[in-house]
């Protein structure tokens, strides 16, 4: 029947809804059919030659997955997530079928506490030796029971050089000043925002109290009219497109766009900042745990991580890979901020008591 006839004959919204509903169901069935593929061939380790990898966007080398397939025969399917919260929410109702995931430090802690991660068998990951010793025994995962470090990153200010008077080397320009009103973007992550304000006020990111949160909330409400957008970790796009001139972002994200646009720079403010680290983990219930170990080991290989690092331009904790990188990477002050600033930076610990307070306070800031 002519599709327009359907519309003509729909009398009233009920039948119209039905006509639209039929189309919607048709579409969702199409998606499911694509997922159910036949069984693949078995590997020597007894697992089928498949691996499901859940990663961040722009966070892998251009050929890494193909190279891994050439080396091992394992087909990697990569899905992307855009925040740790999405990752956590997905796993809350059970592992949806992933073998390797990349949570940040505080979420490694949180997911380990929630019994979502499988302890790693270090014997299957000999390339652990490539990791800088400073990243092995970390507070959020003692002796790397559940995770292997993939990258580390620092929050700071990405800015357009031609639009600022001087390098914005203090959080003041973002948090407590009308100098760049209407050209600023903050991160929409409540916890990070409150902790960085804490840094601006000279406190440790892990020592905030409910009274501090109330003080910071007032400061945020005061500064809000000068802020254009709370971005979902896509500040680099706002900066690149010229919608904002100063954005709160991670160093690697800004390093990526600095390749495209020479007018952009990045600074970690002098008050210090918050560090993060993304880690390779195997979630409980992973269908291919042996492949997952092999994949993590492969990712930690010096040559492989060198290729990844060349693309993603994040600081790597892999000292063997870093040694292979050119000086333009090793001495890049954006990727590796100066030691005196770095000394003032801290990793945020997972804090289940404060997290809801951060969220509610930030909802009030948004509503103000």
């Amino acid at each position, binding site marked *: 029947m002519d599709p327009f006839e359907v519309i003509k004959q729909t009398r*009233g919204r009920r039948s119209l809804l039905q006509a639209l509903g039929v189309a919607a169901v048709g579409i969702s069935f199409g998606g499911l059919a694509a997922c159910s593929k036949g069984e693949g061939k078995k590997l020597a380790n007894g697992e089928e030659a498949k691996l499901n990898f859940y990663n961040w966007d722009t966070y892998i080398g251009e050929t890494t997955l193909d190279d891994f397939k050439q080396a091992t025969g394992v087909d990697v399917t990569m899905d992307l997530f855009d925040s740790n919260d999405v990752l956590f929410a997905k796993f809350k109702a059970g592992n949806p079928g992933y073998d390797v995931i990349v949570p940040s430090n505080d979420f490694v802690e949180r997911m380990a506490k929630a*019994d979502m991660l499988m302890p790693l068998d270090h014997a299957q990951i000999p390339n652990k030796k490539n990791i800088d010793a400073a990243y092995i025994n970390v507070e959020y995962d003692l002796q790397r029971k559940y995770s292997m470090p993939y990258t580390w990153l620092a929050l700071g200010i990405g800015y357009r050089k031609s639009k600022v008077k001087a390098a914005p080397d203090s959080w003041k320009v973002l948090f407590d000043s009308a100098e760049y009103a209407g050209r600023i973007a903050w991160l929409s992550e409540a916890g990070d925002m409150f902790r960085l304000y804490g840094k601006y006020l000279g406190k440790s990111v892990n020592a905030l109290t409910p009274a501090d949160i109330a003080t910071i909330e007032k400061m945020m409400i005061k500064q809000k009219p000068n802020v254009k957008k709370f971005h979902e970790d896509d500040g680099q796009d706002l900066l690149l497109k010229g919608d904002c001139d100063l954005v709160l972002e991670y160093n690697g994200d800004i390093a990526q766009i600095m390749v495209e646009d020479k007018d952009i720079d990045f600074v970690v403010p002098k008050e210090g900042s918050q560090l993060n680290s993304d880690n390779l983990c195997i979630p409980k219930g992973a269908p291919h745990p042996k492949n997952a170990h092999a994949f993590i080991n492969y990712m930690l290989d010096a040559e492989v991580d060198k290729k990844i690092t060349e693309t993603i331009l994040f600081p790597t904790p892999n000292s063997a890979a870093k040694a292979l990188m050119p000086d333009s990477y090793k001495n890049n002050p954006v990727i590796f901020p100066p030691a005196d600033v770095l000394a003032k930076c801290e990793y945020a610990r997972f804090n*289940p008591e404060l997290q809801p307070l951060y969220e509610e306070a930030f909802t009030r800031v948004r509503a103000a």
Partner: protein
Amino acid sequence: MAEQDWKTNRRVFAAVSLPTLFWIIVFFVVPMAIVWLYSFGENKGLTEIDISGTLDNYKRATEWLYVTIFGKSFAVAALVTLICLIVGFPVAMAITFAGEKWRPWLLLGIMLPFWTNLLVRTYALMILLGSQGYANKGLGALWEGTSWVKTLVGLQPLPTWEPVQLLFNNFAVVFGLVYVHLPFMVLPLYAALDRLDRSLIEASLDLGAGHFRTIMRIVVPLAAPGIVAGVMITLIPALGAYLTPDLMGGTDSQMIANVIERQFKKANDWPFGAALSFLLIYAMFALIAIQSMRRKVPEVG
């Protein structure tokens, strides 16, 4: 119309309705019931939710902070619906009175946006509205042109062009929501206007009423069911919009759905998110109930 009563043909009725009933129960009623139960629960640790029958979530959801966010969402959705109605009514009229040959193409034009995902459409709109976007480039070119013409006739040129802020504010949210929801308004309006008896319009015009008066006194009352349907079908999704305020909004553009989303993701407080969701659902139920009560009033005959 000779309709068969379902009571006379129970088996056929059961056979036909069973798959739908199954679908609704398994994929709608059961999941919704679980979420409803969550709304009376509290977080125990990171993943466990203890359904203790507490009303704390609702108590918190009716605090002033959340009431104002609900109120703001209603205001935005109502404004969006009003603009859709004002813009959509003439469009639906035009389609109704267009020639037989044109009508399918015009309807296709209305439905064309549905062929693209909402996310893609929203990003396209953002590219258009950004400070370096095409809308601003076009306005900038016009401004430069005017300035040039002014210098040509010996006047002072205009000051340099400053891009207009079209994105990341409440204007952008309303604009984006109108853009997304306009087809929902036009289609039911068209359905209502299409079955309107044209001779009534002719009679009104013959009896001396002007065009505007004919529309207000004859067309609008007769199309009332379509208008109500269009308002409902626009208002309800606009009330639950979260993608548009999230992507196109500024720092004060959160709507209730954004708050709900954050409870399920960032705050990891599913019980509170569930309570907020159900308050929103109850509000929508109320809207639909008001509408169906209105429908009981005998229509103009």
